[in-house]
């Protein structure tokens, strides 16, 4: 018999009073399993012990004064720690924040084989499963060359972190910045993006087309030039031995162009509160949230749909082929071997778009949508999903707090 997982029991201890409940089956198991009851008691005792130790109340602080102190420091332009040395605050070891929806293209370009940020597509797919805090599915980054197919690569966050930062291999140059801009109408969006804007023929109840918000995203261009000298310098700084950069890769320039795309949001995006959860619709008879930080289950009944479309971004290389670049970068030390194998198996990097799927939180599988093969990505608790596909050089993504059959229906109804 499989017993209840410690993590589940521990969460239940903390969140039962806030509406988190065990499934019927789990409750039944717990009721008659001495082992699990024992685990629960242990967890509770340890939590109580630790709670008592970590209980010192924080003395009062003056936030207004603190802000003034920060402003002063910024004005002075100095950076000092309390013992007077110049401090360079390193960013947190978790790199997930760099992969957020609104992250700059530079951050995405650093992930070597993801040189372009398809912001609109990214945004839609991100929003699609976005009711748990944003950090948890920042892994769902999309990267395009000029995709014809989508390949799901299951990854763990640990594996993702082993991918080297492009910054250590050459120089990035911004040619044109991407922008995000809301426009008043579908017509305006279509014109600005140079697309025929598709819209779902049928919207889920509670959403209407005239509530839609149209946002333009993208329109940027950047270049990255490989430098063997820089790679050698980076390796020396890290104390690493690395394979030398092939002569064909050295001085090659990748140019990334991100066309302007359109993201259409139905439902009120301002209902996304700070933790990224949409507020439930009113008077729906759906379960109400348990307060401002209600658990994800409170989203049942919430209504939010994102549709993104963008001409496929392009990446060109002045020297080495994309295959040569891929091979070189995959040979760098430290990348998780399983990831190397999955990525290495992509036979045509110019047309196959690998989409990293965080293994524990999401599942994905190919689906037929609009007559082509696309990729479905769903949250493992089944509360949100998205689908992405490419047709006639345009990448589409649809997502929201929907089940798979619903999101596919909406996607197939785009016209």
């Amino acid at each position, binding site marked *: 018999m499989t017993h209840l997982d*410690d*993590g*589940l*029991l*521990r*969460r*239940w201890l*903390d*969140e039962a009073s806030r509406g988190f409940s065990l499934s019927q089956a789990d409750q039944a198991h717990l009721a008659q399993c001495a082992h699990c009851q024992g685990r629960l008691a242990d967890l509770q005792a*340890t939590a109580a*012990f*630790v709670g008592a*130790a*970590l209980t*010192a109340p*924080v*003395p009062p*602080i003056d*936030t207004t004064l*603190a*802000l003034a*102190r*920060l402003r002063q*420091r910024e004005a002075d332009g100095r950076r000092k*720690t*309390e013992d007077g040395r110049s*401090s360079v*605050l390193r*960013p*947190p*070891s*978790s790199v997930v*924040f760099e992969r*957020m*929806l*609104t992250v700059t293209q*530079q951050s995405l*370009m650093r992930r070597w084989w993801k040189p372009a*940020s398809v912001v609109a597509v990214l945004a839609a797919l991100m929003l699609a499963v976005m009711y*748990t*805090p944003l*950090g*948890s599915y*920042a892994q769902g980054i999309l990267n395009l060359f000029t995709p014809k197919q989508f390949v799901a690569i299951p990854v763990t*966050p640990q594996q993702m972190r082993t991918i080297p930062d492009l910054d250590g291999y050459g120089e990035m140059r*911004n040619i044109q*910045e*991407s*922008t*995000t*801009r809301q426009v008043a109408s579908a017509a305006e969006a279509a014109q600005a993006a140079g697309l025929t804007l598709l819209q779902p023929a049928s919207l889920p109840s509670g959403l209407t087309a005239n509530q839609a918000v149209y946002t333009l995203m993208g329109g*940027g261009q950047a270049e990255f030039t490989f430098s063997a000298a820089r790679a050698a310098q980076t390796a020396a700084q890290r104390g690493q031995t690395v394979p030398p950069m092939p002569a064909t890769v050295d001085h090659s320039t990748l140019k990334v162009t*991100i066309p302007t795309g359109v993201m259409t949001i139905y439902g009120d995006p301002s209902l996304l509160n700070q*933790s*990224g959860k949409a507020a439930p619709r009113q008077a729906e008879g759906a379960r109400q949230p348990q307060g401002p*930080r209600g658990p994800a289950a409170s989203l049942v009944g919430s209504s939010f749909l994102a549709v993104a479309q963008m001409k496929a971004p392009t990446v060109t290389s002045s020297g080495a082929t994309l295959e040569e670049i891929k091979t070189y970068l995959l040979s760098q030390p430290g990348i998780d071997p399983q990831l190397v194998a999955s990525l290495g198996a992509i036979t045509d990097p110019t047309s196959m778009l690998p989409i990293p799927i*965080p293994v*524990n*939180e999401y599942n994905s599988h190919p689906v037929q949508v609009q007559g082509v093969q696309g990729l479905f990505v769903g949250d493992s*608790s089944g509360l949100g999903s998205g689908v992405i596909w490419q047709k006639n050089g345009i990448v589409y993504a649809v997502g929201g707090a929907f089940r798979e059959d619903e999101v596919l229906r909406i996607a197939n109804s785009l016209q």
Partner: protein
Amino acid sequence: MAVGVNKLSRADTADPERIFAQLFAAQYSQVVAIAYRILGDIQAAEDVAQDVFYAYHRQHAPDAPYAAAWLHKAAAHTAYNAAISRARRERRDQADLDGRRWTQVTEAGDPQAAVEAAEQRRAVGEALSRLPEQHATVLLLRYSGLSYAEVAAALGVGINQVGARLSRAEAALRKELTRDSSR
């Protein structure tokens, strides 16, 4: 070098400095609380909070959706490192002070109780700093008042992972603290 920075350019965009001030007002005390949980010293905790907001302001948009999660994680990371540095310094200094511990007491009230409380915070903080960073982080985040959802966001994991990490970290801290008291 910023490449392709997304700029919100609506006509009625609020002043970014005002947005940052709102972020600061909303999150400063939470960030201090995270740092205080391991440092036990309000001045040190505020120093960490200042560093964290300073870094955030330099590199990120004030209205980014990940702002709170970033700040929380950075607070835990920075405070953890500060606690380790402090522990090293204290071990060095102790050698010169014939083993006595000097506790800085800045709170008002009964000095004896204050010294004991400060000593206890120091001991707990030192135990936390001996844990691997992953354990210390989840404890600092959760025991500074963040919800499971907020802890998940800061850690960059799904909410279902939080319970497991927390229970393992609590077991490790308990072991560390009971090992201490049996010396």
